[in-house]
Every structure is written in C-alpha cells, then in structure tokens.
C-alpha cells in the first residue's frame, strides 16, 4: 500500500461539466476514512499528465472539449504509461467515450479516441436523460449501480472489455448494458458524482491500488442509495 494515495484528475478545465469533482471528493474521503493520506493533482489540458499517480479520473464534457481532450491525451501519452504501470482509472461519460477507439464528434463525424478500452461510440437518435439503475457483473461482487445519465452516445463493446452492468432502468451503452471494465479501468455513462451513489465502486478502484480495505461507516451513502433506488426501481 502506498504511503500516500495520489489521485489525478485529468483535464478539469475541459472535462468537468456537472459534479465530476464529486468523484475526486468521494475517493479522498473514503481513503481518509481508512487513514490513508491523499494528494490530488488537477491536470490542466495544457500540462502533461503525470505518470506516477494511483487513481486517475476523467469526466464529462461538451462535444468540442471532448475532441480537444482526446487529442491532447493521445499526444501526451502520460495516461497510457500510468495504466501500464498498474494505475486505476474511472472514465465518465465523454471521458468514457474518449477511452475507446472512436467516438462521434459535433456533427457525428468519427473522432479517434485514445484506445485504452476496446469500445467504439457514436451518436444515438435521442438524448438519454434520467436516473439509471443496473445490475453489476456478478464477477465484481458489487451492489446495484445507481446514478444519473445525460448523453447522446451509443457505445459498442468489443471482446477486450466486459460490460460493467445490465440496465434495469435507463439507457447506458444502448444495448441493455451500462459501462464496461477491463483491467483496472472502469468506464460509465453515470455522470458527475457516480462514486457518491456507488461507494462500492469507489472502494473497488481504491482497493486495486491499496489492497483490501476495511469497512467504514456508509450511513449517508446508504440512505441516499436506498432512496434513489426506491424512487426508480419497479416495486
């Protein structure tokens, strides 16, 4: 276990649309609650992505920042090096699409992604906006995924990734699945503070780099999860 957990937030100047900071704050809090000190680095899109981080986060954004973000990440190479070293990554919404081989630009034109996930994305017919609930791949042993999605993307998963979950309510990837994972990378359309609604997902990311984590008081997390799932799941 590292003496200090380093959290790297990639390009908050470009890709931080609506509550993405929440994922950073939740990781910090859950590490702190286990006595693990944290250090968070906000990486501007004009700066190199550090290669020595432990957990990386990338958030959502509009079409143009998404394209700029993908270009800069490809050129930079720091994130690739970090992943090869064994760092964990949570990629959200526009950031999720960027991790694939290709995604749709402003006019639906194909734009090259960074190729860290075997997925390809395009634009769907209509915007998916609303609460989402999904059953997580049993191999991960996590409770129901809950959150909010707001995107027009449709994502096809290749053989190199596994679906993160199967949707019960909501659109997700557009084929009955939501998100994906491969190695220590998790991608999801649940935007903003996905980890606030899914603390077990936060612990999965942390545990990948710190080893097994003791349980902590999840009272407020659980209260919010229960309320949201009650509100959206069929009785």
């Amino acid at each position, binding site marked *: 276990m590292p003496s200090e957990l380093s959290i790297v937030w990639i390009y908050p100047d*470009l890709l931080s649309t609506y509550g993405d900071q929440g994922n950073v704050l939740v990781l910090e809090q859950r590490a702190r609650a286990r006595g693990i000190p944290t250090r968070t680095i906000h990486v501007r*899109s004009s700066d190199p992505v550090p290669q020595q981080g432990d957990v990386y986060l990338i958030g959502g954004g509009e079409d143009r920042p998404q394209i700029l973000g993908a270009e800069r990440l490809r050129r930079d190479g720091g994130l690739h090096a970090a992943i090869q070293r064994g760092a964990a990554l949570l990629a959200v919404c526009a950031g999720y699409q960027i991790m694939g081989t290709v995604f749709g630009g402003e006019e639906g034109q194909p734009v090259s992604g960074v190729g860290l996930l075997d997925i390809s994305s395009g634009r769907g017919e209509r915007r998916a*906006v609303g609460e989402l609930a999904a059953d997580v791949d049993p191999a991960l042993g996590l409770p129901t995924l809950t959150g909010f999605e*707001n995107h027009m993307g449709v994502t096809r998963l290749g053989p190199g990734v596994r679906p993160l979950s199967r949707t019960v309510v909501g659109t997700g990837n557009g084929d009955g699945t939501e998100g994906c994972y491969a190695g220590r990378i998790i991608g999801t359309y649940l*935007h903003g503070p996905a980890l606030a609604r899914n603390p077990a997902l936060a612990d999965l990311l942390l545990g990948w780099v710190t080893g097994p984590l003791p349980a902590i008081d999840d009272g407020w997390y659980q209260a919010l999860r229960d309320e949201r799932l009650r509100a959206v799941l069929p009785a």
Partner: protein
Amino acid sequence: MSQLPLRAQLASALGRTAATLSRATGRGDGSVIGGRVGLMLEPDLLRKLAADRKLVLVSATNGKTTTTRLITSALQELGDVATNAFGANMPAGHVSALASSKGAPYGVLEVDEKYLPEVLDTTEAGIVALMNLSRDQMDRAAEIWLLAQKWRRALAGRPAHVIANCDDPLVTWGASTAARVTWVAAGQRWREDSWCCPECGGPLDRAGFGNGGQNLTAAQLADTSWACRECTFHRPEPNWVLDGEDVIDPRGQRWRLDLQLPGQANRANAAVALAVAETLGLDPGRALPRLRTVTSVAGRYTTVEREGRSLRLLLAKNPAGWLEAFDVADPALPIILSVNAQGPDGRDTSWLWDVDYRILRGRPVLVTGERRLDLALRLAVAEVPFQLCDSFEQAVAVLAPGKIDVIANYTAFQQIRAEFGRAV
C-alpha cells in the same frame, strides 16, 4: 407609441383578459397564459408590441431577474417602463409584459439564455445586457459554449448595442460579434466554466485554478485579467469597472453604490444597470438613487418573520449562484439549506458536488428539501456538521429565536415563499 393594428389590439386585449382570469382564479400571476393567448391569435404580436419602444433585453445564467429590476427602476426616472418583473422570461411572458404597459416608451425584458436569439430577432431590441454564463440545470439546459455561440450568431450584423461583463470570458466571446459593445468589469467568482479559451480551446491564463474552483482568495477574486496562451483572445479593456463597493464610470468618476441589495453579485448587477442606463441617456447621478430603492426582488433577499425568528431568504439555483449566496450569508448565523430536484430545478442533483460547502463549517447547518439526502451526503463528505430535518417548518423550530439565513434552490424557494403566503 404608434397604434397597434386592429388584430394585434384584439390579441393583446384577449391576452390581458386571460391574465386577469388566471390571477382571479388563483392559478398563476397571469404573465404566461396571457402572453400565450395573445401569441396564438397574433403570432407577430411580440414584434408589434416591441416596435417604437426603447427596449433592453437582459440575459445571463444568474442575476437576470434582479438586473432587470434594477434597470427598470433606473429607467423609471425617464418615463414608464414595461417589464416582465415576475421572471416569465420566454416570449409569452414578453408579450404579456409589453401588452400590459402599451404606452410605456421603455421596455426592459428578462430573457431566458436560450431564447435570446429568437427574442432579439423578433423585437430588434436596441440594447442587450449580458452578465454571466455558467453550468446550470444540465438535464434540460443547453451546453453553455453552444449557447455563447448562438449569441454570437444572433448579434452579428445587428445594430444592437451590447453591455457585457468582460470578466466572464464566455460572455465576452458571446458578445464580441456585436457592432457596438460597452464592456463592464463586473467580476467573476465562479471560474470553473472558463479555464479554456472559447475561441480556440487553449488554456486561459488567469488566477485561481486547481482549488476546486471555490473560495478564491481576495487577491484571486480581484484579479480579473485573462488571456489565451495560444491565440489572441483576451479580456477587453473595460469602460466601466466595479471596484469593491464602488463603480468607476467611463470618465473615471467613482460612485459608491450603497445598495440595499446585499452581496458582490448585486453590485455587479448594479454596475451593468448603470452602464445600460447611461446608454439611454441617464447618468449615474440620476440612476443610482433609483437602484438604491430596490430592497428585494420576487422574494429574493426578503426577511420573513416566524415566532421570533427572522429568516432571510436567498435563492441559489446552480454552483455559481451558491457561491454568491455564501458571500451574502452571515457566518455568525445559523443557516437552513433546502434543495429540490423538480423540473424547474433540474432533476439531476450532480451540481451539489461542484459547490464547496466547507465555508459553512462552524455554523449550525440545517438541511431540508425533497433531495435533502443528496445534500446530506455532500455535506458529510465535506465534513460539514449538519442536522437533517423533514420539513422547513421543523428546521425553523429547531433553531432558537433570532436571525437565520436560508438558501434554497428554485422550487424549494417557491415552497418556502408559499408558506409565508407569497407575501414576500
């Protein structure tokens, strides 16, 4: 003003009747239904009602209603002013506002950001005031860069005189295609939506990056310069400057604002209002006393009394608005926070995570509203102690008599106003 054609007169009269009925039956304040009836009968009604008036359109993410009120108060020095004072800021509300003051030579209309191009096109307004753009209700609102681009297209090739806040890079970009712009350095506290150049996407060099965007130091807040590192886009030289409690006019004369409305955001709104007033020939010496008469706007900043408790009501609808509300709230007082996620609020509460609540540490914090559990978790993660309350009434009862600040988002605010009979 000139006579309306007969059909427009009829449409306008029937619209007013519908508005009166709406008010009389208690269904609303009438400003939307009246306009809808009028527009249905005469689609060109807004154009006809706007003709031959000196018209000001006011748009922004935050401060539209208040700035509209401030400009209206100032212009009343010159004559009658038609205005949509109740925040009905789409074309039906504009029709209703103009139809109810047909003889007024001036009009001041609050305009929803998305509707600005359409309303500008229809009304051919001579003056457009633009204050700020930031993330707001992402589940239903347009993305803001796209919005600024639409403003650019709408303003290009028109004679409208734009009064714009040059401390907001996105507003500057949105305004800079206009034929004539008066720049007001009105400040920008929330900078999380403007770290990148709207023109080329390059990094903007400016103060305050990397602290989660919040609680800028006084020095960072005062440093409003910005420039793109990669292209030539930079902050224009301001004609008007807000400097703390003062506004400096284009002649270099300093005016102490002394508003009754609290907070830096309202001083920024007032600076814009003074610039607009001068464009219409009203100098600050005559406009300012009028601005000082404004005490509350549609319930915002009002103090209400209940069983020995004086509750000051602050509205905050998005992260930038919450930072401005924190600027107004008194650190020595207990505070009630109420959050809903109904349609008008946005059904997505993610924005709570963009607000830095740590500033509330050390004061009694009570949390209520329909989405109080979202806020509870947010505060718990920020290590801000709080007490959860099932209702606003319960939160008030928990606190001892005395002064209390209240911050609520849109429908939560309206619910609280309703509890006090909308008498505020």
